[in-house]
């Protein structure tokens, strides 16, 4: 199968809603365990949820589902936790763990782990950027966490397709992922009933000016994305301080450097949560 055909087939399967999220069962289990403890301290739960974008998304999706009928979208994990309560979170975690038991991306574990680590780093940097500008920290974290959420979905979809057609070469898979991940991410975030602003960021974080009302948030994530790539050694320091995203956000070079000084803390967060 050609890369174009694989891309088209993947798009069709995504349109039909046949694909689900990649999950990390260990985290789901830990959440289930922690919420089962009658002496559980609520402060243990939110950080656990943050370890897994898929699980966090799942919790938010349930919190936003018709069953709970929120009058407006819930975007904060704390808010979701407060609304759902421990029992519901435990049920979600259990369900997620079961789903994860049958969810595999053969041969793609390394990429998924790397994607997750990157998402966490971007989320952590996004919240630091928002904090520096006195903007909404919660929203920035979530936008950073979910900005590339389309990518694991694409990897899963490609893995399914490859079972029938044989493995695509890495370059073709990357090209498909690069082309589709914004669209897929947007679709996913909207399906989860999360705010349109987060969906816009997932779609337009590579072209933030197109994100309309969410442009400022998309610029935050665009800069956080660059900083997170720098953390992985994929982008050098040169020019980050004067990156167009920094100028759009209104951060001066030394202020970007001050955020980068948090790199060790961000790295620690990624390691602790990965």
């Amino acid at each position: 199968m050609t890369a174009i055909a694989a891309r088209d087939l993947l798009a069709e399967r995504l349109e039909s809603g046949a694909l689900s999220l990649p999950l990390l069962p260990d985290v789901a289990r830990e959440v289930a365990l922690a919420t089962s403890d009658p002496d559980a301290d609520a402060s243990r739960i939110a950080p656990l949820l943050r370890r897994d974008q898929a699980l966090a998304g799942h919790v938010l999706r349930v919190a936003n589902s018709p069953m709970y009928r929120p009058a407006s979208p819930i975007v904060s994990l704390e808010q979701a936790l407060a609304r759902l309560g421990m029992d519901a979170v435990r049920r979600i975690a259990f369900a997620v763990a079961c789903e994860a038991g049958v969810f595999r991306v053969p041969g793609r574990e390394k990429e998924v782990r790397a994607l997750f680590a990157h998402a966490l780093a971007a989320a952590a940097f996004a919240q630091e950027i928002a904090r520096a500008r006195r903007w909404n920290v919660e929203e920035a974290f979530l936008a950073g966490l979910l900005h590339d959420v389309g990518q694991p979905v694409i990897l899963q979809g490609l893995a399914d397709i490859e079972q029938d057609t044989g493995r695509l070469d890495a370059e073709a898979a990357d090209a498909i992922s690069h082309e589709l991940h914004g669209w897929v991410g947007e679709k996913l975030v909207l399906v989860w009933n999360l705010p349109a602003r987060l969906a816009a960021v997932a779609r337009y974080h590579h072209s933030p000016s197109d994100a309309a009302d969410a442009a400022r948030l998309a610029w935050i994530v665009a800069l956080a994305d660059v900083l997170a790539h720098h953390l992985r050694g994929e982008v050098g320091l040169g020019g980050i301080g004067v990156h167009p995203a920094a100028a759009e956000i209104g951060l001066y070079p030394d202020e970007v450097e001050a955020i980068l000084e948090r790199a060790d803390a961000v790295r620690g967060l990624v390691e602790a949560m990965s």
Partner: protein
Amino acid sequence: MTGFVHRDVVVIGGGPAGHKAAIQAAKAGRSVVLIEREASAGGACVRQGTIPSKALRETALAVDGLRRRSGGVFSVEVREDLLISSLMTRLDDVVGAHERFLSGQLSRNGIEFWRGRARFIGPRDVEVLGLGGERRRVRGDLVVIATGSRPRNPKEIAVDHEHVLDSDSILSLTWIPRSLVVLGGGVIACEYASIFAALGTKVTVVDSGPRPLGFVDPEITERFTASLVAMGGAFVGGRRARSAVWDGASTVVTTLDDGETLRSERVLFALGRVACLEGLDVAAAGIVPDARGLVPVDANYRTAAEGVYAVGDVIGPPSLASTSMEQGRRAVCHALGLDPGPSIDTIPVGIYAIPEMASVGISEAQAIERHGSAVVGRAPFSEIARGHISGNPDGLLKMVADPCGHRLLGVQVVGEGAAELVHIGQMALCAGLPIEFFVETIFNFPTLAEAYRVAALDVVKRRRVAAAAAA
């Protein structure tokens, strides 16, 4: 002067003080550059302070007003999952319109706008760092420092702008918190405390003073506190916060100096502001900030450095936008040898809490201190038809007169419309009008302005009683 451009006037900071200074200089025919770190003029007043908080207040007022006026016909509840941004729907329009107005004024007057961060590199030499890292240098015959202020960062409280917030970040919250501890009893603290209380948040205000707004007449603040309590809030006086710590999940635990703990979803730290002098290197201009970190100035806003003036929040209280604008104008007039006109010492103070408070002139306590005694007339809004019609019977207008009860010395008002109502008193003070003027003047009926006549009649009655007692 290699690498320098010359401008007659260099203004650092585009808030109310800097903006007006630049306009005044341009109108006097001088070449002017305004340096501002943000994308447009306006300062914290437009972006973090006055305008955004008033936008949220308008919604809170509508909620509070509907509750008061509906007489129980409507049940008014604010949903707990309502987005704060949805309550400020017109904010972008209001801020945008104001910024366009300010920018238009700058361009109409031929004022250059440089976006960047300024620092002194000589007595009147300024280097500007742009967002892209580029540097420009400008030398001015006159330099005006108007960099404003920012919330104080306390050592004992970690403000993370997520759970423990300050006045710059409080409006970035997604949700209306179910509970909020406000640390501080000043203007900003009381404004936000009452706004969130009106929106249904359980608010607790903690302050070291025995009552909020220590500089305001106690009769006025009593009514503010009573309103806060009526909205489900509380004022904890005479106490300080030792710490405020987020528990990692849902609660910030605030520990007071006596060991008592308060648990809330969010904490607002609103204990003071500090001058924005970071990176400005005022020492290079020969200026030494005082012990409070403010720029010392004389009566004409001159700093210790020749040709360098400072205006607005950076020189300290009263830190009002209205005062700052006037300071900016007067400073430039003085520097350019222009007549700024008579000094205005009857600047009104408006506190946009719920209820609104305002004052002009001196208070009863200040009058007694200065004159030995005072005759005070009161007009509770419960005696004013409009007060009842507008669901505002808890308001009060106080008129403070000299010991003879003839000369008006000050006016204090609490209740909706106070910030507008006080201007009648301001005009009377400026014109030196006697108390009788209010007795003889006919106001529209029904209006809150009638409170002036009621209060004036009260002054007349009390001075007769005092005169009879003296006889």
